[in-house]
């Protein structure tokens, strides 16, 4: 395999693995702010216990998010040196701003969040929780801005020729608020809130089924259910706006998403399907004219198809993009249906008695994860063959001095290390969940005394 495909696999793998964690920490951050706020307002111990419990899980998730995130920041330089030179002015500024305005805020206050309970007042602790949450939101802003600029470049001009060409900023705010920034950012934020909320739903549903920690699990479940319901409904609106933006700014990507080859009136929208790239046909369940209606409010308005673009300027893996996109939408719809049904059961006072519903919630934690990953893959693969849409091709963006063997070596290394991380993460997460939201005082005391009495532990 050549450097290009290996580097793409490496980037996709490291970013996909990284992208499991930050959305969960953003979403959990929101839940923590609500729970700790409730604790300060009501003074009820159950909210304090819930907050302390979720902070421990937050720390675990955050730790892996940071460790894998630092890799991303430097991978642009190691594997994509030409790209780095090309976009340094723009992408670099966004990364620098992320580090100084967002990540520093988040990491600085994280210490107080985890270790500060006995050192600062409860108000200062709550303030730190809010700062960590804000920091994570700001992080998302700069990262999504940087990525959105790759999708819909704005506020720049090109200087130099050929291999020495590069983009320079002409208008900072036009770069930040490029045509897709706001749509994509809100879409990512809400996706993140959903992954946090569904994690809390899943764990508490498990406690409710097992009849453990009920006094904490029930109110926590309700808080998360409100967040999840509101966010999954909002995502419908925001996601639609995002798709509208893609239609306007990246028509080839939109065509790929629906496997739409010929520019005809009455463009269909598929609920499920399979794209045959050779025959240029899609077979599956469709709404005739649905795509035209969704984009133009009219069933008969034509939508630009893939064949309107030169072969070299459009993505290749149409079926994969189609499937990822539809997977995301299916997960989104499932989340809406599930949360609305749960709210209805809540109104009928039967929420916690419906055991099968609780079991669905236990496994539903995977829905926002699939949606986030699939959405990301659809967005990134849909942009191909461009790394910066319409400006720089992925094949030109590589580091010229790095060899296939070096990339292969690092890819194998990351695969091994990340698999180990994933196993340990799941093991420890499971253990924390089994342990549950109760005080550790008693346990620590026992541990300490057993250490004193245990001759093996003595050095």
């Amino acid at each position, binding site marked *: 395999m050549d450097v290009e495909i290996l580097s793409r696999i490496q980037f996709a793998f490291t970013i996909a693995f990284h992208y499991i964690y930050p959305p969960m920490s953003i979403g959990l951050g929101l839940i923590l702010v609500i729970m700790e706020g409730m604790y300060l307002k009501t003074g009820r111990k159950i909210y304090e216990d819930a907050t302390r419990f979720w902070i421990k899980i937050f720390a675990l998730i955050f730790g892996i998010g940071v*460790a894998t995130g630092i890799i991303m920041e430097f991978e642009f330089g190691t594997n994509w040196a030409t790209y780095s030179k090309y976009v340094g002015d723009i992408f670099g500024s966004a990364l*620098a701003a992320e580090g100084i305005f967002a990540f*520093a805020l988040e990491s600085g206050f994280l210490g107080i969040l985890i270790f500060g309970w006995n050192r600062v007042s409860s108000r200062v602790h709550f303030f730190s929780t809010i700062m960590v949450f804000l920091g994570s939101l700001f992080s998302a802003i700069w990262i999504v801005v940087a990525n959105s600029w790759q999708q819909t470049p704005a506020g720049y001009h090109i200087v130099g020729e050929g291999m020495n060409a590069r983009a*320079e900023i002409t208008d900072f705010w036009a770069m930040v608020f490029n045509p897709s920034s706001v749509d994509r950012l809100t879409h990512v934020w809400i996706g993140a809130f959903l992954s946090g909320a569904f994690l809390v739903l899943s764990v508490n549903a498990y406690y409710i089924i097992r009849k453990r920690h009920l006094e904490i699990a029930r109110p926590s479940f309700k808080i998360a259910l409100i967040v999840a319901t509101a966010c999954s409904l909002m995502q419908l609106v925001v996601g639609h706006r995002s798709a509208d933006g893609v239609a306007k700014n990246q028509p080839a990507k939109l065509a790929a998403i629906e496997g739409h080859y010929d520019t005809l009136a009455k463009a269909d929208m598929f609920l499920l399907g399979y794209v045959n790239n050779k025959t240029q046909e899609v077979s599956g369940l469709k709404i005739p004219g649905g795509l035209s209606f969704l984009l133009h409010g009219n069933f008969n308005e034509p939508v630009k198809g893939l064949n309107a673009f030169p072969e070299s300027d459009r993505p290749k893996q149409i079926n994969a993009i189609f499937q990822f996109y539809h997977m995301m939408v299916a997960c989104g719809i499932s989340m809406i249906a599930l949360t609305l049904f749960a709210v209805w059961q809540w109104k009928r006072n039967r929420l916690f008695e419906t055991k099968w519903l609780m079991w669905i919630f236990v496994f539903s934690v995977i829905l926002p994860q699939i949606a986030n990953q699939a959405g990301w893959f659809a967005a990134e693969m849909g942009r191909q063959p461009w790394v910066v849409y319409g400006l720089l091709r992925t094949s030109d963006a590589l580091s010229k001095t790095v060899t296939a063997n070096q990339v292969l070596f690092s890819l194998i290394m990351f695969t091994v*290390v990340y698999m180990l991380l994933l196993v340990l993460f799941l093991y420890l997460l499971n*253990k924390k969940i089994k342990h549950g939201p109760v005080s550790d005082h008693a346990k620590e005391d026992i541990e300490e005394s057993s250490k004193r009495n245990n001759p093996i532990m003595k050095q």
Partner: protein
Amino acid sequence: METFLGLDYNVWWFLVFGGVISGYAILDGFDLGAGALHLLLNKEQSRRIAMNAIGPVWDGNEVWLVIGGGALFAGFPVAYAAIFSAFYVPFMIFMVGLIFRAVAIEFRSKEPMLWWRKTWDIVYNIACIVIALSLGLMLGNVAYGIPLNADKEFAGNWMSFFHPFPIMVSITTLALFLMHGAIYLTMKTENRLYTKMHLLANNFTVFFVLSFVITTLYTLLYIPHLCDQFRQNPSLFLLPVLMILAIANIPRQIKKGLYRYAFLSSAVTIALLLIMVAVEIFPYLLYASNDIKNSITIHNAAASAKTMKILLIIALIGTPLVGLYTAFVFWTFKGKVKLDEMSY
């Protein structure tokens, strides 16, 4: 060339980048040092105290690396691209070190089993040593120079990194962090552990001084391009003099029990060391060892003037903020370490 307070933007950003890297070395330096001596502590209780001494701050310290990476990417994209693609292999090893350091701290306390804790202790210790050595190796190579072609791209292979000079810098960096970390732990510990840290701090100071002296002598004898500035401007000799005073102050303050001043002295030592490197390489960011014309400088690697201006604004707003909450966090956790239920 646009200027701000009499200096052009490129020089300003070189100073900002240097400041961030010094901040990183001073802050992450002590927690890496504390990790690099971890296995010298042989009691479970001591190891826990040492880990909790850095527990609330190490993550915030690592942020400076992220800011430094962003600063180099934004301000000098050509240098960022060349340095990280050239140092591909050592950098990958460095990053694996960072991953394992982070997860070892996070995972160690989560299980009571002896084998679990011992394994993570070893992983943590090795990761910190690997991080320190690879950082030093890269710094040494940046100062010494690597072969670059006319397109300012790396023209060597991975063997190009293993000259005696970068290896000496690498060992000196480890020694420096060990000294810095041991001094930090004297501030945070009590009783017998404190006595041990006190001894280690003195021993590592000796180790650092020896490796520094050897590296300096080697530089003076064999690497003329790293001494030019000093030869031309004898007033620069003030820097090494200040550094000797700062190092000499360390055992003195430890003896007096004023650990905060000892720590401050070792922080000043780190800053002065990096300032001396910066003075010597300026205006180069990456020296081409094969042909000086191919070198990457703060001018030919820079982003546009407009970006430089934006970056300076970002730095002017951001740095005081970061300083403010870094200070707040350190102030919150001042004093000796006391283990509680949230500790590692």
